[in-house]
């Protein structure tokens, strides 16, 4: 037998991988676990099991409103970026003059590289300067769109970059015009990039803190802001319940995407 004999290094490697996974997943599991705690504090060891903190959460209208606000911001960010991020990627990869491709790519990714707090401060000044201020949640929505833009742009750009353009030429030679070729050949090919990008944009927008803190309208908190406010004065497992519900919601979102467009299309 010349089968693969496990060396010491193989065992060390397996152990390392296991440790990394534990390091990543343990906090999430811990939070989920604590949300079912029967005790008064967000602490171990758990004092019994109960659903009372979920009850406390759902009877707390502030959390509910914050969650709706966050969901709406995230959904709009994902949808708007799904359109403008995709269009921007198409322009930069396909139509921009060759010497501008790289500068534009960097520029489009700038929101990722500039510290979020600086973007937030700049936008704050800007919106007050132009007279919009923090009315109508316009500032916070645009802030979210801006910060999550690169996720769609970069995903679509890389999908476009790896796309074999002779497929488009094949479609043209078969008699399809430019628009039909885009709709039936190019778009399906970059769809995984668009969906992945939108999913990222949604999750990041749902999670983002600094931008929301500076640009929010008076009295309208996002879920992370509400959670932070809550934790400043309380330290009970309601916070863990909020986290558990968010995790469950994200999970549901992924399942819905899988059921409708299919995660199999999201292979890289």
């Amino acid at each position, binding site marked *: 037998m010349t089968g693969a004999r496990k060396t010491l290094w193989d065992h060390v490697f397996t152990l390392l991988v296991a440790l990394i996974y534990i390091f990543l997943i343990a906090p999430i599991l811990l939070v989920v676990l604590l949300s079912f705690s029967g005790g008064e504090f967000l602490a171990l060891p758990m004092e019994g099991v109960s659903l009372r903190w979920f009850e406390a959460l759902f009877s707390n209208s502030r959390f509910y409103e914050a969650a709706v606000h966050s969901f709406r911001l995230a959904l709009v960010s994902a949808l708007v970026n799904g359109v403008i991020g995709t269009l921007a990627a198409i322009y930069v990869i396909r139509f921009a003059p060759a010497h501008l491709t790289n500068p534009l790519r960097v520029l489009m990714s700038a929101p990722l590289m500039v510290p979020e707090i600086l973007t937030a401060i700049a936008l704050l000044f800007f919106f007050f300067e132009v007279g919009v201020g923090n009315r109508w949640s316009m500032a916070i929505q645009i802030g979210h769109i801006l910060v999550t833009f690169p996720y769609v742009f970069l995903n679509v750009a890389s999908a476009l970059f790896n796309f*074999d353009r*002779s*497929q488009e*030429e*094949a*479609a*043209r*030679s*078969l*008699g*399809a*015009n430019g628009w*039909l070729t885009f709709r*039936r*050949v190019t778009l*399906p*090919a970059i769809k995984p990039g668009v969906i992945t990008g939108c999913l990222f944009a949604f999750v990041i927008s749902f999670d983002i803190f600094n931008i929301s803190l500076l640009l929010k309208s008076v009295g309208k908190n996002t879920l992370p802001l509400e959670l932070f406010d809550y934790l400043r004065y309380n330290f009970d497992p309601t916070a863990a319940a909020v986290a558990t519900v968010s995790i469950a919601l994200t999970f549901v979102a992924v399942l819905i995407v899988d059921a409708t467009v299919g995660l199999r299309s999201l292979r890289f």
Partner: protein
Amino acid sequence: MTTLRLDRINKFYGTLHILKDIDLDIAQGEFISLLGPSGCGKTTTLRCIAGFEAVSGGSIAFGGRDMTRAMPEQRDLGMVFQSYALFPHMTVAENLSFGLEVRKIAPADRERRIAQTLEMVRLTGYEKRFPRELSGGQQQRVALARALVIEPAVLLLDEPLANLDASLRDDMRFFIRDLQQRVGITTIYVTHDQGEALVMSDRIVVMNRGVVEQCGSPREIYERPQSLMVADFIGQSNTLTGRVTGREGELYVIATEDGPLRTHGAPGLAGEVRVMVRPENIGTAPGDNTLRGRVVKTTYLGASCLLNIETAAGSRFTTHAPADSPLAPGSEVTMGFAAHKAWAFAA
């Protein structure tokens, strides 16, 4: 009848002159190969015909209609790409259906034509498969079927066999040629493989550095090259430089460093010329032309032996000898070749 006419096509990329005055008339049902080394402009020529590249000068006409500025989708052609360019998110049947749907063919008609074409490329039963579930050879046949199902006026093939392994490539040569003859479709085939071009074509267009070096039947190209480039690119050749000193009937008498040679050649030769002899036409016995030399190297090829021979004047020849030839490096050898097997062209 001319299906496709290229009239003094020129193409520039910036200041690079890629195609220089390409003229070509292609008759209905003809199989034409564009053959040449990479960078010779053969693919660019094909892409100009397809409409993927705009020509900088000259005109392209399909069946007498000027199509120089027409969009690719208006040109009525089918194209097979080196990468096949199958639509990965569509099944085999959907790939074939695409061109028919775009042409607004009725569903019942579509199905019939898809079934017919798949049968033609021996892929019946593969309708529901996705391209990634097929082997390279099968994908290639799907690409061929997708181009043929729309029954285009001209079929364009861009190095379609380059990504296949050697044995499959040999089979596919005959398969494509056979299919082309059955369908009777005018075909332009781009390749850098001279073997493919010789086996498949009615006519070969040898290109080099953006110009047409020679255009003719495989036999003409192989036996009567008009330039050193063509002689060297197609098959193996031995060439000698010389000077025309006279004529003996059909034949030229040409003075070379290795003595006078009798050859046939392009009409009207005078002055400096080159003489070409293919290795398989040189024997190890005296002939119309006889040269003496010394074996420099022998290479065993299985079916035969390749001999490298140097003459007293320093000219090098390669020739074939039987596999059991006793000739070893260093031995003296007499070479002979018939006058009508040697060919002279302008130097």
